[in-house]
């Protein structure tokens, strides 16, 4: 019970996308490729029972190609590019009938050569996942995509800051290491769910999405419609973590509904979740050069970022991964080459942290390797090089509102690092927010209070609660007097998307403007907009990476059973810069949730493949953290400053967790470079010591 009343998530009152129903609706099931790369020769539907509608590749030949950053995906694949790619869809009166009918669809295949590793996919002679590069989606809030024609590289992001090669050659100490992180599942409780309905040539979708306006724009291209002929309603989600971004089921379900002449709903099985959108596996080669006194002089970072069969937002992930891998340090000479690469694995996309975890794992492990080489405390090495207010980052931008040292110091103190660093590890994180981006919000007076309309999507992170609390404070009413309808592209003003921990930061400020507008214009309606400008040149990495930095640190204390390799996290602490806290319980839960997800990434999680097939697509074989896996002590803090602005914190405590644990192992002489850190990997490190 709170100021807002009983939480409808607890009472069962909340209606998720999964719960939406329409009169006369049919249910969808999908026919998926068993091959990682194969051309569809024929789709035989003779055995499909009457009363079912089957959507086959030829049905979508007249539709456009989609993709949020690169248009590279057909609504129904005529060439399957991963095991699980959808090559037909069936609509039937019940879910069971649809699944049975999908099994009756007989597909003939011509198998093609496939590639399952991003490093191999850029080697000469590697099979091409796409015969030609997709068209740049031209998304105004996205990035310029740099595909390399005739290769599997769908985007190349470069940072050229100073002369890294020469500075490295002149460095007194150089360390070099290669790091790897696997694919991972977002594993939200609620699977993907979408319902599509056509009426008089107008399309309405109720869908579990963080990105209603991006979905609308992409579908307009697919169906050749004006954007306002498409309506996206985004009910609350039962978790997402990046999984429900951009077009997922929306295009195919809409095409199926169009052919069936009836509303169609699709809800994925858990197994299908593992072939829908995962986290980018990455290989990173890190070279770091320093003077003997620990001053960093040069960094060179090569990243192979596996975006799977379709680009999705892989170009954006490779970009953020690339600059997050520089770390929150003053380094005069930096070279980064970060490639987003197609492979015949399921597509990879946004995952809480958006690439930062992968490169921070590499970057912050390298800092401890360098500290050991220099015979210097890892804490002192970091302190000596941390960015401070007014310093220039490798992107050329001048840093402002900088709190890395506060975060690091808080994390170190929480585990008593300076008293005794044995068994302990630290990690400090720099992560950017979606830049450029735009957030609009509307406030309108109602008989009982106010309605606040925005396209910020609720996925369990508590954006509705934050907007109610902020609105009540600004409008001088009770939070319960504020109504917040589901995001709806017909009635909600534009928002770039609910990603990158930006909603409270962006919408909170837009709301201030809207409330001021309401007051100035008679008290009935107000409109507010915040625009953050910027972006990076993909060829030099220069520009504005982020108008707002997510800053945090983690500390881990571990013990190791050196006979079995079992690692116990005795204490895990995260310190996150919050500026000003709006919704304290919500902010604390974001920290806890991020840390537990980071723990899963560090110790347990990895999607496994055999010839491109996922071999652990269930929660028996794919282990997310359970209560028994939690650290003995899990603590965290929100760093606040008087008069500070609201900082995003939905992801910050995740990326630093794996490296903090890896560095704790290094303090015991155990060197690990790959995630997850399984007992077997620890034992190998014990043997190698």
């Amino acid at each position, binding site marked *: 019970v709170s100021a807002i009343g009983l939480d409808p998530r607890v009472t069962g009152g909340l209606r998720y996308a999964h719960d939406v129903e329409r009169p006369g609706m049919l249910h969808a099931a999908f026919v998926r490729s068993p091959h990682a790369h194969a051309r569809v020769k024929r789709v035989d539907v003779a055995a499909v029972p009457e009363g079912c509608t089957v959507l086959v590749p030829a049905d979508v030949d007249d539709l456009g190609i989609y993709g949020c950053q690169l248009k590279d995906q057909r609504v129904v694949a005529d060439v399957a590019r991963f095991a699980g790619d959808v090559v037909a869809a069936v609509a039937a009166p019940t879910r069971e009938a649809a699944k049975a009918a999908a099994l009756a669809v007989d597909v003939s295949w011509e198998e093609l050569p496939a590639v399952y590793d991003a490093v191999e996919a850029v080697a000469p002679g590697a099979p091409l996942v796409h015969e030609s590069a997709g068209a740049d989606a031209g998304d105004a809030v996205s990035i310029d995509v740099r595909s390399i024609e005739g290769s599997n590289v769908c985007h190349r992001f470069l940072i050229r800051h100073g002369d890294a090669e020469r500075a490295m050659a002149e460095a007194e100490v150089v360390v070099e290491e290669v790091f790897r992180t696997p694919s991972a599942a977002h594993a939200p409780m609620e699977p993907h769910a979408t319902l599509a309905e056509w009426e008089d040539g107008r399309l309405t979708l109720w869908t579990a999405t963080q990105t209603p306006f991006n979905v609308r724009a992409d579908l307009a291209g697919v169906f050749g419609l004006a954007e306002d002929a498409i309506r996206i309603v985004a009910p609350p989600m039962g978790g997402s973590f990046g999984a429900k971004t951009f077009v997922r089921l929306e295009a195919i379900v809409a095409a199926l509904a169009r052919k069936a002449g009836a509303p169609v709903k699709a809800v994925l099985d858990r197994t299908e979740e593992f072939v829908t959108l995962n986290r980018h596996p990455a290989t990173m080669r890190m070279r770091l050069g320093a003077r003997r006194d620990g001053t960093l002089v040069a960094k060179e970072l090569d990243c192979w970022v596996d975006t799977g069969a379709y680009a999705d937002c892989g170009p954006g992930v490779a970009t953020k991964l690339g600059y997050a891998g520089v770390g929150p340090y003053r380094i005069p000479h930096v070279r980064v080459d970060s490639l987003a690469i197609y492979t015949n694995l399921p597509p990879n996309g946004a995952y809480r942290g958006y690439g930062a975890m992968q490169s921070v794992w590499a970057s912050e492990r390298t800092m401890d390797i360098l500290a050991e080489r220099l015979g210097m405390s890892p804490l002192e090495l970091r302190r000596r090089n941390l960015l401070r207010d007014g310093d220039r980052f490798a992107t050329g931008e001048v840093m402002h509102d900088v709190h890395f040292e506060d975060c690091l110091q808080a994390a170190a103190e929480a585990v008593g690092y300076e008293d005794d660093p044995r068994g302990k590890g630290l990690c400090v994180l720099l992560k950017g927010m979606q830049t450029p981006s735009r957030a609009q919000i509307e406030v309108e007076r109602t008989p009982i209070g106010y309605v606040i309309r925005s396209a910020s999507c609720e996925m369990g992170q508590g954006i509705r609660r934050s907007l109610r609390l902020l609105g009540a404070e600004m409008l001088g009413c009770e939070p319960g007097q504020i109504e917040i309808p589901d995001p709806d592209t017909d009635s909600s003003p534009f928002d770039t998307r609910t990603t990158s921990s930006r909603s409270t930061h962006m919408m909170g400020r837009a709301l201030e403007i809207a409330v001021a507008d309401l007051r100035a214009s008679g008290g009935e309606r107000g409109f507010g907009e915040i625009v953050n400008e910027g972006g990076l040149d993909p060829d030099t990495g220069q520009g504005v990476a982020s108008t707002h930095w997510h800053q945090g640190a983690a500390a881990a204390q571990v013990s190791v059973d050196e006979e*079995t390799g079992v690692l116990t996290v005795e204490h895990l602490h995260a310190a996150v810069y919050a500026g000003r806290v709006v919704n304290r319980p919500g902010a604390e839960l974001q920290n806890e949730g991020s840390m537990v997800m980071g723990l899963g990434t560090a110790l347990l999680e990895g999607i*496994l493949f055999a010839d491109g097939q996922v*071999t*652990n697509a269930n929660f028996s*074989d794919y282990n997310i953290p359970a209560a028994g896996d939690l650290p003995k002590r899990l603590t965290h803090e929100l760093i606040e400053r008087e008069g500070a602005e609201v900082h995003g914190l939905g992801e910050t405590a995740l990326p630093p967790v794996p490296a903090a644990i890896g560095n704790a192992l290094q303090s015991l002489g155990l060197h690990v470079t790959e995630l997850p850190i399984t*007992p*077997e990997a620890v034992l190998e490190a014990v043997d190698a010591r």
Partner: protein
Amino acid sequence: VRVVVGAVAEVPQQFPDLCERARGRALDAALREEIAEGYGRRIEPISDARGSADYRRRVTRVEVRRALEDVAA
């Protein structure tokens, strides 16, 4: 003494002849190690997502020894 090892092979593994060696003898360190080493040598572990056969074999030996230490204590 009866020692059964699970989550290592397709079915739980027991080697009565190794356990038989403990009949009428004190479960001292040497005997504990002998039985543990025997289990580690004779099980036919599987490899899967949770660990390789080599890892299972190695840890079987450790866990059997530790279980016998618990019993002896």
